């Protein structure tokens, strides 16, 4: 674990900052896709140390934030069915749906439990054979293989009361959709670190080829991100567009074949509804037919009323990179991490919570 201290080393950081300032001649707008990057950029004050020529915008890479309201409503409705235990990652508890949240449903008597991994959920299923235990499968390529593994384990151990409500989403299709829409002009993309560890950097090659946008995969430490920005800047200034990796210790071109195989075994692509963006074909994952007895969508009769979006919330625009939380009239005044209006304020990876926690003007 030595690299941690190395990657926070102030001296090498200063070198990189100087290099970026020297190379950067033309205005350039870079999007960090991943919410983890947004948080790191704020936490280490990276925007402050970059030259004026470089503008950073945040993208849609926060799995909690992109979960659309109807999908949240569905999870809440499922929680109301007698005999159902909902298990979920903690951030999902507070996300407001149209009329309630999982947290409120729990206070009202629903059995909703926070877990750290789908394996915890599986354990709850074995301990409560008379109940139906549903794991809310949200997340990207990073979490899907683990959920797939839990389904296979349930198969192997014949655990029949374990279900997954799959709301998983895939990253490359949403980036394509955003770039195609052309609402936000980008000169470079900071590609997600953990997602790329699974998909490999090859997943982004279409962006460089079809859209001519430089791509660099980054880790989450400040030096990784600075390195990444330096590489993007170099590409911009030399008019190149290719996929590079600034996160060699975590990412290869090919990715993690084992995890991808697990994911493909259990899931198949399906359309998915992204908050603020809409339905994108092939951007979600659902359980394959042979696992339908673990598919909550198939096994339960979930009734949801038409959804209502939170009034005044700009999460959709924020996720597309066309607005920042500061453009939102509710930010800080009515919307805070304690009483969030939209999911971008709930999730620890959300842009609004990053702005709230780390983004205040210095006094």
């Amino acid at each position, binding site marked *: 674990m030595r690299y941690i201290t190395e990657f926070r080393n102030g001296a090498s950081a200063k070198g990189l900052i100087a290099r970026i300032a020297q190379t950067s001649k033309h205005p350039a707008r870079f999007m960090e896709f991943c919410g983890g990057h947004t948080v790191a950029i704020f936490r*280490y004050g990276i925007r402050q140390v970059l030259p004026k020529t470089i503008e950073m915008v945040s993208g849609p890479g926060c799995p909690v934030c992109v979960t659309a309201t109807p999908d949240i409503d569905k999870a809440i409705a499922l929680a109301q069915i007698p005999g159902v235990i909902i298990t979920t990652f903690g951030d999902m508890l507070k996300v407001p749906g149209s009329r309630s949240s999982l947290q409120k449903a729990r206070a009202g008597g629903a059995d909703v439990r926070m877990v750290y991994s789908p394996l915890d959920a599986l354990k709850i299923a074995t301990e409560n054979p008379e109940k139906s235990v549903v794991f809310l499968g949200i997340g990207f390529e990073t979490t899907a293989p683990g959920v797939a593994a839990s389904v296979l384990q349930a198969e192997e151990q014949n655990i029949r009361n374990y279900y997954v409500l799959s709301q998983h989403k895939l990253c490359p299709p949403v980036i394509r959709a955003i770039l195609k829409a052309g609402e936000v002009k980008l000169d470079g993309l900071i590609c997600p670190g953990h997602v790329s560890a699974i998909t490999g950097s090859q997943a982004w090659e279409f962006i460089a080829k079809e859209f001519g946008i430089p791509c660099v995969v980054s880790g989450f430490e400040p030096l990784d991100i600075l390195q990444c920005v330096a590489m993007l800047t170099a590409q911009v200034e030399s008019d190149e567009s290719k996929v590079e990796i600034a996160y060699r210790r975590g990412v290869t071109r090919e990715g993690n074949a084992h995890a991808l195989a697990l994911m493909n075994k259990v899931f198949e692509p399906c359309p998915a509804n992204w908050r603020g963006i809409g339905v994108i074909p092939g951007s979600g994952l659902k359980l394959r037919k042979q696992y339908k007895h673990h598919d909550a969508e198939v096994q339960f009769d979930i009734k949801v009323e038409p959804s209502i979006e939170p009034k005044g919330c700009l999460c959709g625009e924020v996720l597309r990179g066309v607005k920042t939380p500061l453009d939102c009239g509710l930010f800080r005044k009515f919307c805070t991490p304690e009483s969030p209006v939209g999911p971008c304020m709930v999730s620890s990876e959300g842009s609004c919570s990053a702005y709230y926690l780390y983004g205040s003007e210095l006094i």
Partner: protein
Amino acid sequence: MEDRILLAHGSGGKLAHDLIEKSFVSVLDNPLLAPLDDSAVFEMSGRLAFTTDSYVVSPIFFPGGDIGKLAVCGTVNDLSMSGAKPLYLSLAFIIEEGLLLKDLQRVIDSIKTTAEEAGVRIITGDTKVVERGSADKLFINTAGIGKIPEGVTISGSNAKPGDKVILSGTIGDHGIAVLSQRQGLSFGTKLESDCAPLGKIVADMLTASRNIHSLRDPTRGGLATTLNELAKQSKVGIRIEESKIPVRDEVAGACEMLGLDPLYIANEGKLIAIVSLEDADTILAAMKRNRYGQDAVIIGEVTAEHPGRVVMKTALGSSRIVDMLVGEPLPRIC
């Protein structure tokens, strides 16, 4: 079948009596506890400190400690942070039916060892047993009394511009050690909780100088939250430097992986001291001589600017506001 706690152990009958005698009294034996009257009776004079806290932790055994050690250290440390010398503790257990007797014994033994190290005595107690599912294995409440030495006035509202901020060692060890034991979060680490009684190090510091203005142990909410509390209570600003804050490689590694910020992770054996500029080095030296303060370091200072706010100079040379913890720190999903 291994012996387990039954509901009858809390009923006040013979089983309960035997449990208290065998498991508690004989282990924690001391003259004030021994009479087993309805209350412990003792003499005391001067300025006293009195505090209470309840302890729930899952799992109840974790690397570097257990719920018993935590229950003693937590209350001892709360007393110590007012400058008091911790003397007596009460100890109340709420036990979930079915807890292994040997686990209970292990917790009590750990309480004994920790209390001895801290120089406190357990002088009264209580046990209740609740039905399976009504508690999670074991909850403990402790209350404590300590005596404040003559001339000591330590409070969270005493920090003054110009004061130095000292941190007694690495941050995040406890929170990450406990998290590492959660199912499904197996990241190979040998990290241990820093759980420790801080009475002695505070006594050493007070011997070195009485110019200690504020003391606080950064438990839940971590260093960031505690510094914010101090800044708000004293109506001063606090400036710290990221590069001065000691973090173990294992903690930094786990935090990177999980997307957590060590500044917000709980500690159970660390303290923050806000002390006058003139005596900062003397106090720091006294801390470094104690086993729980070997890595102590001055991490920043108190300012008149930005009252109520904590500002950190990052390793990159930029500055940012460090806010209180909101919600609980959760591992990232992405």
